[in-house]
């Protein structure tokens, strides 16, 4: 039987890439596949995945749930749960293309849903919190069911395999969106399995991550106090919840959240002006358990934007670039040049300094 995360440790890098069209123009999924494919040697075939934003314009007001099922029992149980909590507007298998390079796939389904009005009102929660709790309920209580994507007008696609094969498997050439993120996995501590591939998502937040987090347990314990269940025993899951907590629940800005997880060193804080010292000291003190130590480069996708961030020591590589309205970011410059040889600007963001891009206008 396949051993999952946490049941075995494999001591053994990763690749990330992102494209963002600031004018909201639609980029074909094949572009991000071509980008991540160049960095093939950074992964080892044990996980690849993508997130696309703006890909479901027809259903943009509905939560798009992407679900893995190990068997039909899990599907029946999950669908019964969904029907009790949501109005299901549309459901279907997620279209895939058979390839010999992607095997042992679970059942992969997609549901466009909206919370049942009376159930939502009885819960006394806002719509997003209601949906988050339902996702956690499925992932922790229903054996063999795993919701791996739950945002509006966005979706994650992931599998065990090399990212270019995963992209082909999910027919990403048939999707278009204003933002794409990709990940090629080289698991360092745990075996690869479908749920453990990146991106990790929670409603519209999606994370792809290259690195290894030594603060995982400290971060996890803090988040458990606020109802986040780390069920996948992998470090990237905890980053997704950290951002959901800081941004959605605490209302921090993206810059502030970046200064929590990649806090400047005390020595660096001491050299700032008094007001800035006070602000940074506050963030580092109040959220000390959310400091992420260890090497990382991450992309955080959210509704209408994307943030790229390195750990404060910059122990993982990351290059950013611009061409007209298009923003690119990747572990290696070659992954950008392969899809856009001529660039207006190329730079390496500093450790701990977030690069944030947003849509310049509402996408219709």
């Amino acid at each position: 039987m396949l051993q999952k995360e946490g049941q075995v440790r494999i001591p053994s890098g990763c690749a990330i890439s992102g494209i963002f069209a600031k004018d909201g123009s639609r980029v074909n999924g094949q572009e991000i596949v071509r980008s991540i494919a160049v960095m093939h040697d950074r992964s080892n075939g044990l996980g690849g995945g993508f997130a696309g934003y703006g890909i479901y314009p027809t259903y943009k007001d509905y939560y798009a749930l992407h679900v893995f099922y190990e068997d039909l029992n899990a599907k029946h149980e999950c669908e019964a749960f969904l029907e009790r909590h949501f109005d299901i507007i549309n459901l279907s298998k997620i279209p895939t293309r058979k390839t010999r390079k992607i095997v042992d796939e679970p059942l992969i389904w997609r549901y466009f849903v909206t919370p049942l009005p009376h159930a939502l009102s009885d819960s006394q929660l806002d719509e997003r919190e209601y949906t988050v709790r339902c996702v956690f309920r499925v992932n922790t209580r229903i054996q063999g069911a795993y919701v791996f994507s739950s945002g509006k007008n966005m979706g994650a696609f992931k599998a065990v395999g090399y990212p270019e094969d995963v992209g082909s498997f999910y027919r990403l050439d048939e999707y278009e969106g204003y933002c794409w993120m990709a990940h090629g996995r080289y698991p360092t501590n745990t075996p690869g399995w479908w749920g453990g591939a990146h991106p990790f998502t929670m409603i519209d937040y999606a994370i792809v991550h290259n690195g290894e987090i030594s603060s995982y347990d400290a971060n996890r314990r803090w988040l458990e106090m606020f109802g986040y269940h780390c069920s996948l025993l992998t470090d990237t899951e905890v980053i997704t919840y950290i951002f959901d907590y800081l941004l959605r629940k605490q209302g921090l800005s993206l810059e502030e959240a970046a200064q929590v997880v990649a806090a400047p060193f005390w020595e660096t804080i001491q050299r700032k002006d008094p007001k800035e010292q006070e602000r940074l000291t506050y963030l580092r003190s109040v959220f000390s358990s959310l400091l992420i130590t260890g090497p990382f480069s991450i992309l955080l996708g959210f509704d209408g934007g994307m943030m790229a961030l390195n750990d404060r020591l910059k122990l993982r590589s990351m290059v950013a670039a611009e061409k007209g309205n298009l923003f690119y970011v990747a572990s290696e410059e070659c992954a950008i040049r392969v899809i856009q040889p001529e660039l207006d600007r190329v730079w390496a963001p500093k450790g701990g300094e977030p690069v944030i891009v947003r849509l310049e206008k509402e996408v219709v």
Partner: protein
Amino acid sequence: MRLNAERLSHQELNRAIRESDENDVRIINCCGQRYLGAGLSNKQVEVTGTPGNALGAYLDGASITVYGDAQDAMGDTMNGGTIVVHGMAGDAAGYAMRGGEIYIHKNAGYRCGVHMKAYKDRQPVLVIGGEAGSFLGEYQAGGIIVVLGLGTKEKAPVNNFCGMGMYGGRIFLRGERVPQDLSSHLSVHTASQEELKEIAPALERFGTFFKEDMDSIMEGPFQVIEPNVENPYRQRYAAY
């Protein structure tokens, strides 16, 4: 010899370079292939495009010129030869370099020249035309690092933690400014005429490679960072 790197793996590309009968090898359409010219002791290699990580690792006398940007770990443990980059370079350029010369026209990333060392006639030189990232010359043991900061004003041309853990060699920073966070285990002084003479040949080569006006660059001044002999590092340092 001209090699089109499109669709060639790094193994195929490196084998073709090694097995070439010609001294001059031109690579076009390079896109991310790693270890180019690794360990090469002769030949002149010209690369157009974006070479991958560990370009010229263990280079042993060959010369490599890149018309584009270089990625991470360029010249890792390089022993001899020359690497010239007409663009910027990623993190850890000249990592553990122990001979030869690296010239980067624009900025370079974090941890450049980390663990650089020297022995007798092996005196490695790393010249960065733009700015360098944090941890420049971390644990440096020998050799010379020069950062020109072309286009930089009002600040030293390096980011944080310059020379941390350094116990040999020198870092030359062009301009009046000294890094604000310089460790008390390091000392800094303005370069003397003799020291300027020492780096002049490397700066002249920089000017020739990149067609920069050397007179204004040589004017300096240059700040020289060295280990503080009165207060050397006695144990591992750690940022917190």
